[in-house]
């Protein structure tokens, strides 16, 4: 591919991303947020003890621990992060 073709492709890619950003990014973000919110809620219900919520995880919840470990730091941060009204616009 020549330099000109590469630049043209890069330009069209940028235009595609711009249109996606204008039209669909919000929807995609919302879908990801919904999924992540449900996952975090599930982690709270099963592993809430990590945040001081008195939910003692039973044996079956602890079997999920290896799958939950990669998400624990982001989950804790999200649960404990200071929030206010302006976050509703995020």
């Amino acid at each position, binding site marked *: 591919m020549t330099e000109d073709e590469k630049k043209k492709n890069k330009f069209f890619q940028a235009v595609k991303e711009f249109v996606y*950003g*204008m*039209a669909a990014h919000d929807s995609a973000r919302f879908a990801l947020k919904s999924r992540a919110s449900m996952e975090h809620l599930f982690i709270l219900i099963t592993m809430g003890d990590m945040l001081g919520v008195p939910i003692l995880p039973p044996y079956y919840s602890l079997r999920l621990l290896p799958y939950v470990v990669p998400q624990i730091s982001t*989950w804790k941060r999200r649960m404990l992060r200071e929030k*206010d009204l302006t976050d*509703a*616009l995020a």
Partner: protein
Amino acid sequence: MNSVFVLILGFLVAFIGYRFYARYVDQKIIKADPNKATPAKMYMDGVEFMPTSKNILFGYQFKSIAGAAPIIGPIIAIQWGWLPALIWILGGALFIGWVQDYSSAMVAMRNDGASFGGLSHKLVSPRARIILLAFIYFYLLLIAGAFGNVVVSTAVGLKAAPMAWLFLTIAGLLAGQMIYRWRKDILLTTLVAVVIALGGIVLGKFFPSNSIIGDNLAGSRVLWAIIAFAFCYFAAVLPIWRFALPINYVASYIVFLGLFFGIIGVFILHPNFTLPAFTGFNIKIGWLWPIMFVTIACGAISGWHSIVSSSGTARQLENELDALPVGGGVMFVEMMLALFALIIAGTLYSSSAGYSEAIVKGPGVIFAAGVAQFLGALGLPAEFGSAYGSVMMIILAITIMQLVVRFMRIATSELLSDVHPIFRNAHVGTLIASILGFILVYYGWWQYLWVLFGGANQLMASLALMMITIWLISEGKPSAWTFYPMIFMFVTTIAALILTSINLLKKVFSGALKGEAFVGNLLMGLMGFFLVIAALILAWEGVKAINKYRNLKAQKVGPAAAVNA
């Protein structure tokens, strides 16, 4: 003056501002570091913090900040002449607008993605945060009122608009169903939805609202105000994927196509300005300073952008270097949108008399006529162009309105749920926001409502600049580039709000108004004063914070200077 020259001037200002001034600030003052991890990369929780490509964020930022204001403001402000409006759009965006947008994103990014509420608590004081949130609530109410008025005037003034609006809603609902429930291909869904929306625009020409519901109802402001807020009500309470998101998705294509071809139309027709360059310092709607500076909001500077930049964009930037094109660059694009609106207002009518006759029907009507003219250059029939322009205007206003009403529902629940549990109910919060907005739209005087909205919006911008200035001082960085714009905006907006509130309350207490009209306009006047008082308290807190950081810096330098001596 030729309109193409204005566009070229705009491109030049954008180029020089971005390439030299903005880049200097980014590289030498803020010192954006491509190797520093942004909150999006550090936290990546898949909820708010998600690293996103700068091109996608460019489109997202533009869609989030481009509402009705960059269009309505210049169309109204041209009454002082196109020259002062042009100077403010160019100068405002160059020295204040991009500064606020860019630095809001940067400050939030450097503070772990904190929103302005959190930043005001950390940098200023806990009291500042509470006052800021109360300020934001009433500021959003003014947005709902001002934009609601735009929607109502457009629906009343352009009888083709309601049918187009109806079909846009149907297209959006169908798109949501196709994507989220029927799992159809996104390209097919987009095609079907956009064709339905365009079909509605064509049908609007053949089935204007007065032919379906009669002249009385078609011209009824009450009916369209109820419909507008019912629309926002459904957007706030229904699942977002079912109503608000898919309608916004389809609407963004309508707006994008309209703007793209409209600007091509300007280059093809290249009309000259027919309205006068300057009409006077004091005209019927007020003094040039401060009123014109708050009449043109988003095209030059807008506090709304600081909320979007800090709460939304800053949490998605994957690299510090992206803050400049996304935050600063998009502001210059919005400046071009404001110039497009100024060109429409300045070139459409052969004389000031023609403009004066049209502005009575509402700025949305003028915008639709302008879009019709410029799309006509591409061969599209004038009636189709007018219907297209009218639905663009409604989209630009109502997409922000629905977000505002949704936010006010959450705010009502958070602020009042301790007072009574009923306020936790989503319907109650939404109803309160909708009723308050309806009162402003139906009973508020349009000319005062727009200026109050503009004043509140610009005051929000000056408060954002104040927090940015405090952060710069706390970091030991030069702050003159945000401090002086902050002072200018603060003084201008306080003056505009006080003047407008006094004039409004004088009219209210003159005895000319009775009943609900009295209440509605009294509410507006009092809101203006509340915003001024809140801003003065925040400014005082800000002064204390600035002095605190300056004293801290002096203490650090003091012992070192003594040692060196």
